């Protein structure tokens, strides 16, 4: 326990130092984002995804986000996220509650996840940590046998994003290390590495780009490339 506290202090101290003197965040308005993705993994092979996301700010301290992904791999995902947020002298603290349903039609499988997390963000960095639970179910489950759905009650969720510019800047480039993204919640020992960029073209329009790499076997100490995603799209800011 003492070791964990020491790690926490060692991690958080530099973050506070980096944040010193940076301005706060502006209030975000309604946003609608559309992205197209090219993706590959050995099981689903080459496939394309269409993502639609809507950000709905309810008030300065509360926002909602809805996300849908349709994939040519015959997998369909929907997620809802609610996010209470509180400005602190330096940066912002937020809570996140996530519900995600992944309809893996190709395998006749339902993957339902629910997450609760706490996050902290400053101009150049955003950290989220929490936990999530998963229920996997077979579409054709026989109710008259011992067959059951599978519950994975506790998974650690983490997300670290480091930005090259302050988050209020009209353009930015960021690097991510996480086990979750908008459309999947991987087990804690299956991290994802990503890079994202955006550019405010004109007042209401923003271009978005991203790439993500998924290795496997990192904690088998025998990592190999597993999958990758490239995405591009735009956001309309109301």
């Amino acid at each position, binding site marked *: 326990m003492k*070791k964990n506290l*020491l*790690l926490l202090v*060692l*991690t958080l*101290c*530099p973050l506070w*130092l980096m944040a010193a003197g940076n301005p706060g965040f502006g209030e975000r308005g309604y946003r609608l984002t559309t992205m197209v993705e090219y993706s590959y*993994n*050995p*099981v*689903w092979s080459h496939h394309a995804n269409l993502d639609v996301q809507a950000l709905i700010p309810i008030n300065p301290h509360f926002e909602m986000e809805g996300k849908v992904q349709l994939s040519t791999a015959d997998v369909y995902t929907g997620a809802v996220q609610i996010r209470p947020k509180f400005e602190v002298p330096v940066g912002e603290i937020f809570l996140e509650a996530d519900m995600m349903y992944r309809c*893996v039609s*190709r*395998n*006749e*499988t339902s*993957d339902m996840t629910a997450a609760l997390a706490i996050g902290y963000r400053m101009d150049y960095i955003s950290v989220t940590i929490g936990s999530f639970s998963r229920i*996997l179910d*077979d579409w*054709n*489950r*026989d109710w008259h*046998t*011992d*067959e*059951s*759905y*599978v*519950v*994975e*009650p*506790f*998974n650690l969720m983490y997300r670290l994003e480091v930005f090259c510019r302050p988050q209020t800047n009209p353009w930015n480039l960021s690097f991510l290390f996480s086990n979750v993204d908008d459309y*999947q919640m*991987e*087990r804690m*020992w*299956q991290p994802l590495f990503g890079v994202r960029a955006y550019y405010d073209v004109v007042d209401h329009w923003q271009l978005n780009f991203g790439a993500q790499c*998924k*290795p*496997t*076997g*990192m*904690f*088998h*100490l*025998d*990592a*190999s490339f*597993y*999958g990758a995603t490239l995405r591009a799209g735009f956001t309309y800011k109301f």
Partner: protein
Amino acid sequence: MRKNYSYLALGALVLASCVNDDTTLDMKGMFSNNGEPVNVRFAQSKAYNDSVGEIHLNMGADAYTIYMCTDSHITRKTHKNLDYFMAQYKAASSPKLALHLGDIIDAQKNIPCADSIVHYAGQTKKDTLFLTPGNHDVYFKQWPILRSFFKTSAYWFDTNNGTKKLDLFICLDSADGTLGTEQMKWLKDLLAAKSKEGYRRIIVFTHTHLWKLDDSQGHTSNYALEEMYEITSLLSQYGVECVWSGHQHARQSVIYKGVHYLVLDATKDSEKGQSYVTVDMGETINYHYFNYPPVE
């Protein structure tokens, strides 16, 4: 300057936790393949399988016993539980066969220390002990050593009673946390063909388990989600009855999509409350758990 000290302390802490009594861990393995990747191991295994031909075990009866253990993690200093398991297996009356579900060794260059098993690998047709590699067996470029003893990491064999086929056993190499493209294709083709041959049951054994049901598995990872969906669907589609695995050092039993997924306790000397399993294979399957005697 203080910040640098903080990072240095953090790094030292992480690295210090990765050193054991046998050797140091090569952390490069977290970011790249530390030897032959699963597709290469599978290609070499397939070439070996093709060269030696199929393995059909005549059990002489419809019923027989399987001795099964996993995660012995032997070191150069200790492998008492594994020796105990092998002694029990050898002393048992026939008909019988044995399975080791991977992580035979703990770290580099310990494979030859497993002298109670290295010369009896069933897949080399020398005995009826069949092995599947775990991550500890192959990382740090150990596949060539493992291969010199066990020859193949992915294969199948079947049992018969002298006149008719009984059970089909498929061994998968999941030591990297993935089956890889080639092995996955081989598995699909094999199941499609063999599921029509009238086996009593089809059993898959491999090292990496599929679920993360609790925290007992520590930092052991599973398959990527996409692969888990696909494997469970495939095994169900072709009527696989059981999947036996290790990796998490704690027993677990799940029936999902009509397939029974069983994870075994470990055989590691330094862990308490570990066990091996015997399986009565007849018209039904019965499992019996046996605790290892305390290691002095």
